[in-house]
């Protein structure tokens, strides 16, 4: 494997890490209206991801940086081309960061409702839009001879892309429900299992159609293995949720997400942005990459720091491994609205 191929894998791994970890962060926010009927319950939901969501989000920032360093042409064409979708994602993420951090700072129902809205927008929008964007990458977009993407916004919402958006959203919602079940006890736990149960069949259907569509239209022979893994893991999710084994359900669901996003990257390879205008205008890992020296430097940096990052992020999950229940949520220590003191 050459260094360009290796860096394609690194980029894929960074996005896979981002979606597996932020997948349940998004899911938790998406399920606020369903599972968070009282303020205390919403706080239970929020605190299941409390210590880790910020670290999870850095996977995206680092994926962006790595894309810039390893495949500047890909970075430039994709981010300039997907301008408005990216703007939507950024706005949603901005709202989410502030809403999560500031929610408990003021003890007032209206304030908290607004923050909850920010958390929900910040979870739903990126989940859907990332799906639309990645499906478009695989399907191909219009790219001209100067490596400029010329697809209009309307082109980006074809049936395959919309199915991609639904797939991401459903997979993350289920991921969030199972994660909440895994991280809570008592009534929230029981309700999360019920929601997960209800989500399984629609998720199976949508993801099933999406992966088979992806495979038949864009897949390679060996990627049938990924399709099989996704479908098998989906059955595993259904079985383990029925059996109330949320730990296994979470593992299987993570495999589902790794599987179908892995399938998207595998279908792309060795292209990174196939062009629908003319095949030769498309970007591949060979015409979009940095120089061998930059790739070598980045390889050393990644080889040294990635294990350390994985180690301390893993440790964080270990430190906060206890389940949370409504009884453990302390009274709000936010300031009252409107009082001068």
């Amino acid at each position, binding site marked *: 494997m050459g260094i360009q191929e290796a860096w394609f894998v690194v980029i894929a791994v960074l996005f896979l890490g981002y979606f597996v970890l932020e997948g349940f962060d998004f899911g938790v926010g998406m399920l606020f209206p369903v599972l968070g009927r009282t303020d205390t319950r919403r706080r239970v939901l929020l605190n299941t991801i409390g210590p880790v969501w910020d670290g999870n989000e850095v996977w995206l920032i680092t994926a962006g940086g790595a894309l810039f*360093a390893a495949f500047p042409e890909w970075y430039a064409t994709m981010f300039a081309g997907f301008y408005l979708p990216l703007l939507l994602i950024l706005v949603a993420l901005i709202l989410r960061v502030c809403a999560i951090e500031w929610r408990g700072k003021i003890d007032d129902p209206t304030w908290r409702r607004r923050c909850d809205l920010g958390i929900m927008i910040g979870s739903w929008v990126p989940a859907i839009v990332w799906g639309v964007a990645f499906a478009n990458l695989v399907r191909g977009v219009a790219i001209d001879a100067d490596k400029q993407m010329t697809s209009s916004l309307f082109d980006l919402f074809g049936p395959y892309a919309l199915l991609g958006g639904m797939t991401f959203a459903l997979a993350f919602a289920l991921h969030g429900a199972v994660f909440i079940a895994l991280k809570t006890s008592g009534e929230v736990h029981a309700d999360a299992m019920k929601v997960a149960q209800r989500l399984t069949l629609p998720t199976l259907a949508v993801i099933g159609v999406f992966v088979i569509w992806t495979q038949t239209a864009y897949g390679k022979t060996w990627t049938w293995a990924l399709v099989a893994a996704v479908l098998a893991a989906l059955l595993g999710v259904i079985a383990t949720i029925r059996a109330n084994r949320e730990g296994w359900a979470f593992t299987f669901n993570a495999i589902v997400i790794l599987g179908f996003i892995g399938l998207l990257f595998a279908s792309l390879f060795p292209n990174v942005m196939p062009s629908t205008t003319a095949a030769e205008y498309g970007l591949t890992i060979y015409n979009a990459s940095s120089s061998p020296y930059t790739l070598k430097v980045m390889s050393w940096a990644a080889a040294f720091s990635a294990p350390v990052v994985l180690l301390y992020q893993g440790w964080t999950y270990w430190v906060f491994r206890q389940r949370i229940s409504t009884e453990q949520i302390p009274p709000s220590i936010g300031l009252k609205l409107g009082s001068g003191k």
Partner: protein
Amino acid sequence: MDALDISRWQFGITTVYHFIFVPLTIGLAPLIAVMQTAWVVTGKDHWYRLTKFFGKLFLINFALGVATGIVQEFQFGMNWSEYSRFVGDVFGAPLALEGLVAFFLESTFLGLWIFGWHRLPKLVHLATIWLVAIGVNASAYFIIAANSFMQHPVGARYNPETGRAELTSIWELLTNNTALAAFPHAVAGAFLTAGTFVAGVAGWWMVRGLKHPDGEGATMFRPVARLAMGVIVVAGGALIYTGDVQGKLMFEQQPMKMASAESLCHSETDPNFSVLTVGTHNNCDSVTHLIEVPGVLSWLAEGKFSGVDLKGVNELQQEYSEKYGPGDYRPNLFVTYWSFRMMIGLSAGSFLLALAGLWVTRGGRVPHQRWFGWLSLAAIPTPFLANSAGWVFTEMGRQPWVVAPNPTGVDQIRLTVSQGVSGHSSATVIASLVTFTVIYAGLAVVWFTLIKRYVAAGPSEHDKHPGAPEPADPDGPKQLSFAY
């Protein structure tokens, strides 16, 4: 306006927003680490309360720093795709390193610090805030190294086949003399900001706290105020020194920027240092120098008081036109001239607070003077404004370049901003400009209100004693010591 101007406004607005919150984060993280260390070492409860009090302010600020930072990572590709293609090979590396080495560290360990009270052993918990402090400063280093490449490109060659700059030495990139001068200058500015913030809040609370029956607020805030004033003095010294080093580098490497900063229109030997000018600055000759000091500029440029030849804007313009082809190579003189003076002048606010504060708290005194309370509050915004002015000067002083040519480097590694911009329609970029400006403005108002409310509320009774929380029901599970 065309997409170029809108893109420039957008990058300027989003970056200035980001850099309102960043210096406070960079400076306050180590200060809070020091407060918590003081608590762990001395066991005195008031250090615990101060850690919690300033910790809350830190977190309110950190959120907006992160939120405004996310945009920056993507904006290069969105609005400056041609620039990204040209320098991605070089510029991407420090950006990726920043994510890999610094962002993961600060975000993960901040989560551990926020939620780890009474869960982690005391010393491990103390280590987490120190790691946050290291992380935020490390990220500053990488991003400043990236910016310094744009000011003074080194460690790269030009590949004529691809038409791109290519990295040849990561070591040269990370030890760029511009980066080695700009990083300590920015960090000193951040410490000045955080020092002024802590000293200002504590100074105001000392005066106000005396009216409270137990006067506890006053005695608690006195030690931290003096600590912060010490930080101001040291950071101030470092700012002057690193600023001088940076200035000398700029005279050598980016002469147009310094000539504009002085509105020095014509080449002169030993020109005077300009303190005040009047004029529209829309061209060189509309400026009249009112107050000038001899000798200073020569010293700033080369470290001696006479025999220094400095090039003027007009001569440099002619020189560049001959070298790089026809074009206007002059930055906006008005902005560079006044932002340079604002940067230096506004830092006086912090010094004034430190000097007055050290005097009124001398020999164990707790200040009661109303004027000192007001001075404390009035000083807080000054370093924020000085930071902004400094970056506006640095960035607008390199116009029209986005990658300024290095006089002793590879000549082809240069790019004007008009060559770097993406080919979007104005409407597209206006949409994002308006979106970001409106959202940031709204969030900045909330940020200010929250900070103000939490400063005015003072240290919480809730955090009076550093013990673990009791369960609501004695048989029930233990409550979380912190929950969103």
